[in-house]
């Protein structure tokens, strides 16, 4: 169902932008805004509709941080690596999140439950090291607390 909508949207977007300069990036922006990422089959269709090689589309997508190639997770997990958090060993939190979720930075778990990013300064350096899940900030996090924090979100689902 979502796919059908995407197809319809894509044709609409191409129609709107086709004749304009810089259209690729504008269309990618819209796709990213609607779906939170740019699916591969959408890029393939876009390549045909715009007559732009797929390689060029991927050059643009991977150049800008804004575009994602994977669907966003239900919950966004961020660990801060700003100066204060860095000094307070945020890297051990990153390792722990990666170990528990079996994904690397920038990836989403197979069940699409969590997406994980490493970010720079969340603006609460006094609480370093900081991790954030969706809108909620967790401060002064210890490595052995990470599993508990994450499990709350899993339980919520059940």
């Amino acid at each position, binding site marked *: 169902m979502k796919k059908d909508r995407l197809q319809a949207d894509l044709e609409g977007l191409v129609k709107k932008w086709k004749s304009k300069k810089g259209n690729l990036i504008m269309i990618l922006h819209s796709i990213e805004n609607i779906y939170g990422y740019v699916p*591969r089959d959408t*890029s*393939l269709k876009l390549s045909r509709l715009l007559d732009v*090689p*797929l*390689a*060029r*589309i*991927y*050059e643009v997508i*991977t*150049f800008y941080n804004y575009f994602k*190639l994977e669907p966003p997770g239900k919950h966004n997990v961020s660990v801060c690596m700003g100066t204060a958090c860095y000094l307070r060993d945020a890297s051990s939190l990153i390792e722990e999140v990666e170990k528990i979720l079996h994904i690397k930075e920038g990836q989403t778990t197979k069940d699409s439950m969590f997406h994980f990013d490493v970010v720079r300064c969340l603006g609460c350096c006094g609480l370093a090291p900081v991790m954030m899940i969706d809108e909620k900030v967790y401060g002064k996090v210890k490595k052995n607390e990470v599993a508990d924090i994450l499990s709350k979100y899993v339980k919520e689902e059940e």
Partner: protein
Amino acid sequence: MYKMIEAKINGITVEVKEGTTVMEAAKKVQIKIPTLCKHPDLPPSAACGLCIVKVKGSNKMFRACCTPIEDKMEITTNDPDIVEVRKTVLELILSNHPNDCLKCGRNSNCELQSMASDFGIREDVFKKFLRDIPQDSTTGTIVLDPTKCILCGRCIEVCQKGQDVWALSFLQRGMDTRISPAGDIKLSESPCVKCGQCSAHCPTGAIFEKDDTRLVWEALKNADKYCVIQIAPAVRVAIGEAFGVVGKNLTKKLYALFRRMGFKAVFDTNFGADVTIMEEAGEFVERLLHNKGELPLITSCCPAWVDFMEKFHSDMINHFSTCKSPHEIVGTLSKTYYAEKNGIDPAKIYMVSIMPCTAKKYEITRSGEMFASGFQDIDVTITTRELSRMIKQAGIDFLNLPDEEADGLLGEYSGAGVIFGATGGVMEAALRTAYNIVTGKELEDVNFIKTRGLESIKEAEIDIKGTKIRIAVAHGLSHVEEVLNRVRQAKKEGKELPYHFIEVMACPGGCVGGGGQPYNVTDALRLKRSSAIYQDDKDKELRCSHKNPYVKKLYKDFLGKPLGEKSHKLCHTEYKARPIYIR
């Protein structure tokens, strides 16, 4: 008229056309400015930063590759400051590059390695930051090793602009930048047509030919195998470069070499080219005079072009000559005709082909017809570059070998056979024989000069017994679409066809500029290689395929007639549309 500019480089006055870059101008006065990204075939990308020079009146340094020289400019290309900066740039490049030289496919042939040698690099000054990206050898033709990439951008320029394939791209940015097909896919799932031009232009070991030499040595060692070999036209005029000889035809030394290496019979792809012409010229005349199939006829001996057409221009399949490439024909005939004539069990024959081409490695298993003899017709294909290593491993003083002849049955060739190695050659060879089929007469002058040379699209009109034949020759895949679109347009509008016959070669210059040929190719070198080929043609007593006595014998004793049942089974193939991306 161009405006002329006078400037000084290291105090030497140089006069050049407006728009000339500092690097080009310096070359005119015997000054070499180091670079790892600028290639004579390609526009400057200003990626590596090694070519920096000083300009009087500015405290900035400029990149010579992309700075147009200006009137009265005073340039310094060499002083202790410049050497120091270049050395630092090089050290930074090396900080992202593994110290794997001894095990690298480009060892002793690498532009980065020789630059490091020139600048006397003796230690890792900066902390190593190496990328951990796996090698990709999924196409079976070239190996992509992004860990050795210095991000010069040559392969991408060649793949995207030169060949219009767009298999390779730069993904991500900054420290994470890498060469890759679009997304996390393998080259075999990408549009890659295996032409190997990326490998021929790469300055390092980031892209190189898949090495199959071990298979050849093992077969030669195996007493149960009857090893036979063939060489392509373009190999003979380029292999010498690996031994310091440029533009020389070494056919007869190669024949001697192969016998010394242990091959039982030595064949020549040029013989296969003569057979291809018998079939293809026949096919052309059938289409031209008897309406049997669509015009224009398009040549199909280049496997990278075949792959490109199947992926990007499959609406043209009916225009394609169904005739196999010369290399495949010699392969099939070695395991049928030759085996039969000499009472050899074809299962024991091991056919090795030496090609200027990486895509030929793909062609040998491209479709079911490549097994027409009942076996895989060609067992292994190695490139000119791999052959040069084998010669060195064998310890044979190649250049001083006595001349020998090929084994006649599949080895004797006409002048038409050898010119397949240069752009326009297949067209010229086909016209020589097509003329004979149509008129029953021989050409007084067999030279079709208009099909020769490096112009990207060559057109000509030839009169065969009152019929005007319009032809086009394109080389470098980015020039193909223009030609095909003219055909499409005329068909759509129901107008007279712009051409009757089209030749396409994927690589610039044709096979002499193939992706498996020795490195550092330029247009000047392509011309040297092709003039050695045209000289061979000129020196031949017989210059038309249909006059080759061994070709006549083949048809009389074995195949019957061109386009007959047997030759259809053994010498022809089929095409199908293939997806550009598999995923």
